[in-house]
C-alpha cells in the first residue's frame, strides 16, 4: 500500500532492503519491499522457500543475524517510531512488548529447562512492573486465554511435558502476554498436524479479533491465507510481486506467479475429479538469489513472458482497486479468465 499512514496503522514498512553476504556471494534477500498493517488486520505474506518472507519478518524485528545479513535500506515504522533508528537497548524494549513473534518450531522456541509459567512471567518482568505474584497470576490467565486446559497445573510444567499443539499455544500466550500492537507468526502451523493446525489458526484469529492486534502471517499455504488473512502479499525472489485484499487476490490474481501457485495446488478435496488428472505445474525452479536474471525473476518460468520481461524489471503498479502487481502484462490479466 502506498497511501499515507492512517491513525489505524500499526506498522509501516517502506522500501525495505536486506542483504546477505555468504560464501557464495552477496544477495538481496529482501529487495524494496513496502507494506503496512492496520490494527486488528491480518496481513499474509506468501511465497515459497527462499522468497524472503521470513527475512522480511526478521528485518522488522531487527533480528537478522549480522553477519552475514544486514538491513541496508528503507524504514520500519511501528506506531510512529522508526525501528531502524533505535539502539539495541531501545529495540529490546520493543521486542516482546510492542512486537512479538512466534515461530514454526514450538519445541526449539521454548527453553527446555524452564517451566512454562516462568517463561511467560519472564517476558512480563522484562516489560512490566509487576510483583512476582501478579506476573504468575497473569501467566496463568494467559494460558487460560489460549485455551490450555488446567492452566494452573500446566504453568508448572516443562515444555517436554506438553504436546506440539500445547507448546504452540504456550508460545502464543508468551507472545501476547504484553498485549503487543503487532504479532508476527512465521509459519506457525507448518510443523503441526492438520487437525491441530485448524485449532491453532482458529485461536490466533480469535485472539487477534478480541485484542485488536495487527498480525503478519507468514506462510506457504494458500489455504491458510484464504482462511485467515484480509490482505495478502505474494513474494518471489526477494521482491513483492503482488498485493491485494484476500478476496480480490483469489478471485482475480494478476501476477502469473500467483496464478501458477493457485493452479499447482491440488484442489483441496477433488470430490468428483478424475482419478489421475494432472496438475497444472509451474515449470523450472526457484532461481538462486545470487544469480538472478536481469529482468523479471519469474520470466524464465512464465508462459506469458515477452522480451521486455527478460530485459527490464516490471515496477509494482496499481491494476485497479487497491490491487498491485509487478508484471508488464498485469493489466491484460484483468480480462483473461
Amino acid at each position, binding site marked *: 500500500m502506498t497511501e499515507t499512514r492512517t491513525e489505524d496503522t500499526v506498522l509501516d514498512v517502506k522500501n525495505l532492503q536486506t542483504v546477505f553476504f555468504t560464501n557464495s556471494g552477496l544477495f538481496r534477500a529482501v529487495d524494496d519491499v513496502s507494506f503496512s498493517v492496520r490494527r486488528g488486520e491480518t496481513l499474509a505474506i506468501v511465497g515459497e*522457500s527462499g522468497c524472503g518472507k521470513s527475512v522480511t519478518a526478521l528485518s522488522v524485528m531487527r533480528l537478522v543475524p549480522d553477519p552475514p545479513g544486514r538491513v541496508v535500506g528503507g524504514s520500519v515504522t511501528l506506531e510512529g517510531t522508526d525501528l531502524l533508528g533505535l539502539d539495541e537497548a531501545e529495540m529490546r524494549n520493543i521486542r516482546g512488548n510492542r512486537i512479538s513473534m512466534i515461530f514454526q518450531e514450538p519445541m526449539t522456541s521454548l527453553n527446555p529447562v524452564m517451566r512454562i509459567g516462568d517463561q511467560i512471567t519472564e517476558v512480563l518482568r522484562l516489560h512490566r512492573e509487576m510483583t512476582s505474584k501478579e506476573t504468575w497470576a497473569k501467566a496463568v490467565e494467559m494460558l487460560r486465554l489460549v485455551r490450555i486446559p488446567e492452566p494452573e497445573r500446566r504453568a508448572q510444567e516443562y515444555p517436554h511435558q506438553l504436546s506440539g499443539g500445547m507448546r504452540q499455544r504456550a508460545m502464543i500466550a508468551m507472545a501476547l502476554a504484553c498485549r503487543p500492537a503487532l504479532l508476527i507468526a512465521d509459519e506457525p502451523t507448518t510443523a503441526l498436524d*492438520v*487437525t491441530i493446525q485448524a485449532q491453532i489458526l482458529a485461536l490466533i*484469529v480469535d485472539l487477534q479479533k478480541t485484542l485488536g492486534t495487527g498480525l503478519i502471517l507468514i506462510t506457504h499455504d494458500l489455504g491458510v491465507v*484464504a482462511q485467515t488473512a484480509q490482505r495478502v502479499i505474494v513474494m518471489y525472489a526477494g521482491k513483492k510481486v503482488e498485493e491485494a485484499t484476500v*478476496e480480490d487476490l*483469489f478471485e482475480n490474481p494478476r501476477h502469473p506467479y500467483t496464478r501458477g501457485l493457485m493452479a499447482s495446488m*491440488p484442489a483441496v478435496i477433488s470430490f468428483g475429479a478424475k482419478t489421475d*488428472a494432472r496438475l497444472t505445474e509451474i515449470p523450472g525452479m*526457484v532461481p538462486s538469489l545470487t544469480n538472478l536474471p536481469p529482468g523479471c525473476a519469474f520470466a524464465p518460468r512464465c508462459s506469458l513472458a515477452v522480451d521486455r520481461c527478460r530485459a527490464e524489471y516490471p515496477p509494482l503498479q496499481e491494476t485497479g482497486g487497491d490491487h498491485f502487481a509487478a508484471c508488464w502484462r498485469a493489466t491484460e490479466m484483468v480480462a483473461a479468465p
Partner: protein
Amino acid sequence: MTDQRPLLEVTDLVKHYAVRGGILRRRVGTVHAVDGVSFSVGKGETLGLVGESGCGKSTVARSVLRLVEPSSGAIKLNGTDITGLSKAEMRPHRRSMQIVFQDPFASLNPRMTAGDIVGEPLGVHGLAKGRAQQERVAELFAQVGLRADQMKNYPHQFSGGQRQRICIARALSLGPSLIVCDEPVSALDVSIQAQVINLLIDLQRKNDFSYLFIAHDLAVVAHISHRVAVMYLGRIVEIAEKSELFANPRHPYTQALLASVPIADPKAKRLAPMVDGDVPSPINPPSGCAFHTRCRYAMDRCKLERPALVEAGEGHQVACWLNDGTGRAE
C-alpha cells in the same frame, strides 16, 4: 483394476517397539506403532495412506520393504509371503519394490554423482555394467525429466525437486511393480510439488506399476490415489475408493481431517476445528476405539470395545460403532 489378484497384500501387520529406561535398559513400555493393519494394493493401483504424525504410516511403509522387521503379520508380494525371508531370499523380491523418501536432501549420498546413484541398483543386481549401465541411466534420466549431461553432477548441484526426480529414477531402475512413496512431496515447494506429482502420475500411466502413497496432506493424497486408507494411532479406521471416501466419509476422524484442511477460497471461511485436543501417545493408546478421547460422538461403548474394520458399502470399510449400527467388536 482391483478385481485381479492384488499385487501387495498386508494382513494383520503389527509393529511394536520396546521403550527402555533406567540403567538396566529394562522394558518400561511399548510403542504400538502399527497395531493390526490389513490392506491390499492392486496392480496399477495407487493406495493412499493418510494420517497425522505418529499414526504409524511410515512404519507400515518400512515394514512392507522389510527395512524394519514387523512384530507379526503377513506381507504378500505377488502371492509370496516375504516376512521371514532371509536376506538372500529377499534379494530377488527387492527388485519388485522400491521406495521414494520424503527428504530429497538426505536420500541421496552427497559423495556420489547422480548417474552413479541411479546406476548403482543395476550394478548390485548385475543387470547392466559399464556402457550398458550408462545408457540405461541416461534413459531413466530422460524418463524423469532430467538431462543426460546432469549424470555427472553431485546431489548438491540439484534443486529439491530435481533431487526427488533422481530418487524416482533410482526407484525405477530395477523395473519394480510397486513403489512405496513415503511423503515424497512434503518437503517440496508448492510449485515443485505439482511437477513431482505429475511425474508420478505420468510414470504410472506408462509403466502400470502400483504406488503405496503415504502422506499427511489430504489434498495430495486425494489427487493421486485410487483408494485411500485413513490411519489413526497404528490402525486403519476407514478405507474406501477415493471419491466415495471424500464424498461420504463415515468415520468421525476422517470427517475431522477433511474439515481441518484449509480451503484456498476466502469465501469458504470455516475455521471451526472439528476435534479438540491432541493425538494421544502411542505408548499407552486409549482403550476401546483410540479416537474416543477426541471424538464428539463418543459413547460409553467406544471407551470399552474396539470396533473392527467392517464393510459399510461397496469397498468402503469403517471401524466405528456409529456405522449404522453395523459396527462389530474385535
